[in-house]
């Protein structure tokens, strides 16, 4: 279980995060949802250990990680643009970290990850030859073989188009399930957050606006911001789709 207590952060007297309290159960997928500048990426970087917080504590399975360095926390991240090494092949990227952690993953396990992400046909390709979805899967594989205790994903779908988006979404869900992996996702897209995660943390101007399951958020929006920012967008989308297909498909 990951527990955040009273986390605050300021950048040059501008408050970015204020008193964030949060508990995430093991194996849960949680989305951090907010507009740009809301503080969601900062929160992700604080959990990762990249950004220092001003106040508060981070606990993982009752162990205090507040002053533990990024490298020693055992969490890992896939960045929005994947940050794959362009001079290495897909395979070399995947096993990049294994060279530092010999024996942590057996050959069979490695193959399992590769098969699971359907990367076999692409292993010898250079990064430049891969499509967006393939890059995303290589980046996931590279991170997963490090066996992170928590998987962090920064806008994992924003660079992908339509159909690929849906398939990666399913993939992320099955990863969390298959490996019982706590997954935290940053996104600005309500539809993405609500269809992908077990729980959603809506952040507005550095404060928690609402934290709950998709159902809770849809049926019991806590405030005007959630109604305006989250629900309205989804209602418009629903409207458009109804108009396309006709009401009977509702």
């Amino acid at each position, binding site marked *: 279980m990951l527990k955040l207590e009273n986390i605050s952060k300021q950048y040059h007297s501008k408050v970015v995060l204020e008193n964030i309290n949060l508990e995430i159960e093991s194996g849960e997928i949680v989305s951090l949802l907010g507009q740009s500048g809301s503080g969601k990426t900062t929160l992700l970087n604080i959990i990762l250990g990249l950004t220092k917080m001003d106040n508060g504590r981070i606990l993982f399975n009752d162990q205090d990680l507040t002053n533990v360095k*990024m490298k020693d926390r055992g969490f890992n991240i896939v960045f929005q643009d994947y*940050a794959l090494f362009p001079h290495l092949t897909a395979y070399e990227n995947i096993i990049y970290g294994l060279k*530092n952690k010999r024996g942590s993953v057996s050959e069979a396990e490695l193959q399992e990850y590769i098969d699971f992400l359907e990367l076999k046909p692409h292993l010898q390709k250079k990064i430049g030859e891969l499509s967006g979805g393939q890059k995303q899967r290589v980046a996931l594989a590279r991170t997963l073989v490090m066996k992170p205790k928590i998987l962090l994903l920064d806008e994992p779908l924003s660079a992908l188009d339509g159909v690929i988006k849906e398939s990666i979404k399913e993939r992320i869900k099955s990863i969390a399930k298959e490996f019982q992996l706590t997954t935290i996702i940053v996104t600005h897209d309500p539809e993405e957050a609500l269809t992908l995660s077990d729980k959603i943390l809506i952040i507005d101007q550095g404060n928690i606006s609402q934290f709950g399951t998709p159902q809770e958020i849809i049926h019991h929006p806590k405030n005007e911001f959630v109604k305006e920012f989250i629900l309205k967008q989804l209602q418009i989308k629903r409207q458009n789709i109804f108009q396309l297909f006709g009401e009977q498909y509702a």
Partner: protein
Amino acid sequence: MLNVRPEMKVIYTSILIVFLLFLLLPMGTLLLRSFETAEGYSLTNYYNVLSNSELLTAFVNSIKISGLTAIITTILAFMIAYALNCTNIYRPLKSVIKMGILIPMLLPTITYGFAIMYSFGNQGLITQLLGKPLFDIYGFNGLLMGYVIYTLPAAFLLINNSFMYIDKKFIIVSKLMMDGSMRSFLNTIIRPMLGALGGAFVLSFILSFTDYGIPASIGGTYSVVATQLYQVMLGSIPNFNHGAVIAVLMLVPALFGVVLLNYLERFNFHYDKFSQIEMVENKIRDIILGFISIIVLMGMLSIFLVMFIAPFLTSFPYDLTVTMQHFINVFTSNDLTAVYKNSLIVAFFTTVVGIILAYSSAILNTRTGLKGRVAFDVVSMITNTLPGMVLGLSYLLLFNGSSLKGTFTIIIVCNIVHYFTTPYLMAKNSLSKMNPSWETTGGLLGDSWFKTVYRVIIPNSASTVIEMFSYYFINSMVTISGIIFLVSAQTSLVSSKIKELQHFAKFNEIFVLSLLIFFTNLIVKLICDYLQKKQSVKNF
């Protein structure tokens, strides 16, 4: 791409004629003269030059010292760029380092030599402070020091620029993948920087190999190619044909360097995109790198310090009473004020005409469908390769008998061609990023092509034009290699006057003139930076 219009063809042809007359023809003449002997054309000159042990020593010396300079400069420039880009050093300190490192660019290289003499010579400022001379400065040591100071800003700019385009997220990824510091450093910094580091090495090598100012002032008995070339051309027994051979031989490493640079280009990483990210905290790294940067900067600036002190004293270091006499002397001497005026005139016309030429070339190259527009890329590659001394010498050979000899025009043209590459690439870079349909849009709204260029294209690249201005102006104020063969008694410039004053040991006047160049350039640079900043604020 826009349809070709007659007015484009006219501009295209005019520019090509300029380069034909002032680049290809002089180069051809140079090559021809290098083969010319009393008995017709042969390799005799080459044979003579290469069997002359004195010249051969100069070549070996030049290669040795330029190579060593390049190694030292690349390492220093890299460390400073690393400190600026990959640490959490206090921001204002970073800005100071970044600006300070560029200061030598505002001075002619010939001044460096005198500053080193007055700092590290037997009676020098730093020698006095330390109590004893550190090393013999005339010859190898002084040259090395001068070359490093000269090449450091250029190498730094190149490396620093590449650093900005490196995705620092990889440093985080590498940390999370449990890399040790060495593997992390090699994979996320050195590997993506390989091209730039090689580039900085080659650039530093070529710059020191072809510079004339530093060996002219502090070379002592250590002979290098540049001083040999000057000797052969303007010494007691001039031999133009041998001079041409040396110039051609000087061109060889430069040619080789440019080929190497293009090859190294392949090693550059092209990240899809990159975003800003926080640097991992590491106090020890920050302190060490901050310390190194400050030491390098202070070391460099301390050498120039004497330049700001000596001219205010009666006779440094013997009579230390403060006086304005040297300044009064310079400003009341018609000779010296005329020289300063000459420099301003040359810099002004070089800049204005140079910008028009480079900007027009870039527009035709990037925003029209003209056949043969690649010609400008070829020209810019040639001018990039040409050392100033070689270009100046080829002008001397070609225009010696013509009415252009001894005029400002020939100096201005030489500067424009010599420094063409960078402003051209600046303009090209900015013009190619603009929306390609603006001319069509302008046309549909009733503009002529000229009108769209004037109303849309130029205003949207104002910031680049200002940058071009600053580059052309400052370089034509400080160049000596390019113009040393072209100045006459009437068209003498500050940098060449300094060389003359050296013969009469008038070092105070040398420093006063250097300060004049320095402050003129500083003012131009500050104004340009300010205007550029204002532009970018306006646009975003």
